[in-house]
């Protein structure tokens, strides 16, 4: 049973790793060129474990942004994790806090969607969950360090289509979370709001603001539109 859950978690982490690997390499190269050491890059991947968050952190730090500017910008960009975490509360009810802590450290957009999709048909098993999160995390950590150490030997990654790994991953995550027509509409509303906010220059807060507004719109419309 242990082996089965463990293997299932690793299997489900495979496509996540496929997406993380090129992204992690790219992050490693960029961070190394911005003056970060492989050790710092690895530490950041262990502790922060957030693609967009890490890219923005490196950009801000190397641009000389202030300490708290960096911290609060990343918190704002990653504030969606707090909403995901609230959703996870129903799955961790019977787990001890240390286990919840371990699982939550591995919470990303990808692991969140893949695990909650799995739990629609299976009982939330911590062995599966940890295996999924930790495998994804290990791929992320090692690819960022590899990018930092071997970055200059890697040919132009973009020509392999790797620059589309992240958008492709989020397109898949969108359809994995779009359970019905209402959810699709809610997503489209969020996308449009996000675009408008970026156009207005709110490119740090666009995701969280668009999410809050669109989810609220979803609830409101659901009250009015039956079925």
């Amino acid at each position, binding site marked *: 049973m242990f082996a089965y859950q463990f293997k299932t978690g690793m299997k489900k982490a495979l496509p996540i790793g496929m997406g993380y690997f090129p992204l992690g390499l790219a992050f490693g190269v960029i961070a190394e060129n911005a003056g970060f050491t492989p050790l710092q890059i690895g530490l950041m991947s262990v502790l922060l474990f957030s693609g967009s968050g890490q890219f923005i952190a490196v950009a801000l730090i190397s641009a000389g942004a202030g*300490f708290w500017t*960096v911290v609060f910008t990343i918190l704002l960009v990653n504030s969606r994790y707090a909403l995901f975490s609230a959703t996870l*509360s129903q799955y961790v009810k019977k787990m001890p806090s240390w286990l919840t802590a371990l699982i939550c450290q591995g919470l990303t957009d990808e692991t969140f969607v893949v695990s909650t999709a799995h739990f629609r048909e299976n009982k939330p098993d911590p062995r599966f969950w940890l295996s999924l999160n930790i495998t994804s995390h290990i791929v992320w950590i090692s690819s960022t360090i590899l990018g930092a150490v071997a970055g200059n030997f890697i040919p132009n990654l*973009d020509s392999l289509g790797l620059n589309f790994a992240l958008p492709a991953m*989020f397109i898949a995550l969108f*359809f994995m979370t779009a359970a019905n027509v209402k959810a*699709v509409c809610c997503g489209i509303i969020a996308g449009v709001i996000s675009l408008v906010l970026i156009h207005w220059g709110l490119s740090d807060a666009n995701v969280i603001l668009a999410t809050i507004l669109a989810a609220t719109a979803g609830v409101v419309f659901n009250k009015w539109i039956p079925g």
Partner: protein
Amino acid sequence: MDTRIILIILVLGGTNFIIRFLPAVFLNKFTLPKVVEEWLSYVPVATMAAIVMPELLKGGGQTVYLSWSNLNLLSAVPTILVAAKTKSLGFSLATGMGTMALLRIFIQ
């Protein structure tokens, strides 16, 4: 400079751990009201769309760049079809990256 970077990384890790962990561990003591549960059910799909839609449309220094040179937008078409049909992370990634690689060969 080095200790400052390590310190920033530690604080980033700590604060992000808090937002990942506290909601899960505190809210599990309560049963959430129906309307909050419903609201939360829309959060993932809204987040993914809010992240990806601007990524697909931007280009040429504009927020919305509708052009045959917008390779992200072109690559998105088959990726969306495959993702909608399969709901598979692996197939969507392969389609998206494959299309992008081909477009780069033929268009540039």
